[in-house]
């Protein structure tokens, strides 16, 4: 016995779970991770693009994408707001461990519902009433699109990820069908509609940004300060516990998914009434999937989501600008975005765990504590 203990060797390092670390420390780890990522990206860009992509120029262009002109700054704010809106929509479902992968489709049917109202009723109703009607239609359409998979899950235990994913394809083709059938027969895109534009406050972006910020605050309060929010958290932790303490799991699932879909529908309404004034199969353009990452990165906290949504938008816009400035295709910007996200997600490891290196034993049998 004594012999064995003597021979046991401590590895060079081992990983241990950290207790909670102070905010400044976790922020420091993140900042260091981002700096490392940027360093790697500049080196990579220099190798892949060539000598014209000096580190200074490369970083400048990355920032220029979001901050280069006043227009870009507004677009950065707008992109962040729209992404944030979808992330907010997904969050209550995610906190409940209901993997709603259908934000794209739910927002798209929302957009489509608005376009139906504006196309057929535009000019026949005052703009205010038309907008209100479009808003209701969008919210209803989004809610229905999320409610269907939820009903199936609640009643028959179907897989919600696959179900919501498939609903995306139905939504896409519904849009294509509607355009070819009604909005612009024979074509796959439609003209801009003259009616049902959201009023502009300063410019077309500000009102939308404000709406989403208010929504963020409301969602935070809903999740952390209300009984509903508590129920969602309990169902997410353990359905059995939820049942035991008298929470009706099916009811909570349906209620939460109606909310999730309704916010997606709202996002579709904003996209159409404030910006596009038309609909195509690409109106949402995969934002519903990017929103999953935004919500996850923020650990399902609506306030932190403002930051993660801004980060993703910043990277996307910076990537586009790099492609334009250095005249390269989107492959290199995608690599850059991938590296930065990898470092940001990877550094979570160092926040949750610490690496302990082998220390020379001071006393006999004095292993690391």
């Amino acid at each position, binding site marked *: 016995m004594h012999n064995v203990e003597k021979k046991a060797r401590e590895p060079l390092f081992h990983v241990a779970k950290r207790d909670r670390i102070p905010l400044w420390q976790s922020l420091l780890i993140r900042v260091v991770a981002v700096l490392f990522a940027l360093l790697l990206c500049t080196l990579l860009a220099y190798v892949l693009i060539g000598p014209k992509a000096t580190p200074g120029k490369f970083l400048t262009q990355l920032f*220029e994408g979001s901050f280069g002109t006043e227009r870009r700054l507004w677009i950065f704010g707008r992109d962040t707001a729209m992404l944030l809106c979808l992330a907010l929509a997904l969050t209550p479902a995610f906190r409940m461990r209901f993997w709603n992968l259908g934000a794209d489709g739910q927002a798209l049917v929302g957009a489509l519902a608005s376009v139906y109202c504006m196309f057929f009723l535009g000019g026949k109703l005052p703009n205010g009433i038309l907008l209100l009607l479009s808003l209701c239609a969008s919210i209803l359409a989004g809610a229905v699109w999320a409610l269907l998979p939820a009903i199936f899950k609640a009643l028959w235990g179907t897989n919600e990820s696959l179900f919501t994913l498939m609903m995306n394809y139905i939504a896409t083709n519904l849009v294509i069908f509607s355009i*070819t059938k009604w909005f612009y027969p024979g074509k796959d895109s439609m003209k801009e509609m003259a009616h049902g534009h959201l009023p502009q406050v300063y410019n077309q972006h500000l009102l939308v940004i404000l709406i989403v910020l208010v929504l963020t605050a409301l969602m935070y309060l809903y999740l952390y300060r209300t009984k509903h929010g508590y129920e969602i958290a309990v169902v997410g932790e353990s359905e059995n516990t939820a049942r035991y303490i008298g929470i009706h799991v099916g009811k909570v699932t349906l209620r939460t998914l109606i909310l999730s879909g309704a916010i997606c529908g709202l996002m579709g309404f904003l996209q159409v009434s404030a910006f596009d004034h038309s609909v195509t199969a690409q109106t949402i353009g995969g934002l519903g999937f990017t929103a999953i990452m935004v919500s996850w990165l923020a650990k399902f906290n609506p306030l932190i989501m403002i930051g993660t949504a801004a980060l993703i938008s910043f990277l996307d816009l910076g990537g586009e600008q790099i*492609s334009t400035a250095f005249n390269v295709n989107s492959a290199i910007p995608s690599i850059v975005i991938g590296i930065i996200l990898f470092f940001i997600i990877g550094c979570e490891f160092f926040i949750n765990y610490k690496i302990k290196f082998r220390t020379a034993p001071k006393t006999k049998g004095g292993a690391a504590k």
Partner: protein
Amino acid sequence: MFKKLLSLTLALLMVATLGASMVSCSGDDGVFKFGVILLHDETSTYDKNFIEAVQRAATNLGLTEDQIVMKRDIPESDACYEAAADLVDAGCDVIFADSFGHETFLLKAAKEFPDVEFCHATGTMAHTEKLPNFHNAFASIYEGRYLAGVAAGLKLNEMIENETITAEQAKMGYVGAFTFAEVISGYTSFYLGAKSVCPSVTMDVQFTGSWYDENEEKNAAIALMDSGCVLISQHADSMGAPSACEDRDVPNVSYNGSTVGSCPDTFIVSSKIDWTPYFEYICNAVMNGETIATDWTGTIKTGSVVLSEVNTKAAAEGTQATLDAVKAKLVSGELKVFDTDTFTVEGEKLSSYLADVDTDPKYEKDTEAIKDGYFHESEYRSAPYFDLTVDGITLVNTNFG
């Protein structure tokens, strides 16, 4: 909670001020700049064709790298308008967009920035919108398709002579994207070209419902070959149909550039639109302060419609010489592709046809297109409007998307 919010706000503010301090002064500084909006990037044959033409035009005009600003992967949404506005901010004097669906959004930018010229490929709205700074352009690609069809017909003749097939078995297959006039005009001219040298030829057309779907295009080509088609051509952007032909050793007439590299045994010839002349034209016009035509049609004469090199390994003997002769007749105007003497519709020769030239939501027919014994394609507007099904062509399916 409050502290968290405060630190977040502060962090965002810091980033914003950092950004704002980096704002460079771009804007119009008197130097000519050409902005280009592309649907995809070099990986799509469609966009590659535009990118290469921009580069050739830049070289010919002596423009520097800084005078060309290209925006890739711009979807057919409001993002196109924003890309255009951003190009205006960057000081571009003329902005070009390459995809049909960009049109409404480019039009929006044209209305907002009257001092900048906007040009759009394949669109239909310029001649009815009548904005002084919004222009459409296309090319009479049907002339190129006709020539490619002649090469296909010669190949069929060779097969008939070698007794590989009988004259009745001379059936071609055509993989199309959508049942739009652009595609119909293309396959009809291809068919008429083949028929001009091989009178017994027939053709089956199958639509995929997508401009780019490698699997669907491959499957459509295989289905056509299974149903007895001995030669395949296509109007879609992937390598699906050409590679299916190479696998089965069936001759292929390609589009948008030579595919001889990956199909050395079956590639005959390919037609494509060369946008270089148009780019030179619009850049020159803006630099010299001249007006750009509202609706510009490039032709085989202007060098906008070109054929690739003939692959002698797959093509019939003497193909190049015949093509040169037919091309000369097209250039001189002696030969008309849609000569009403060369085709019938439901057994009748046409003497009149109203085409849908002006854009309207109801698809109304508005312009008489047959005059002087031929269908006047791409003359009343640059985008094609020939949408008849001529005898000898069978549509396996239809797909309007």
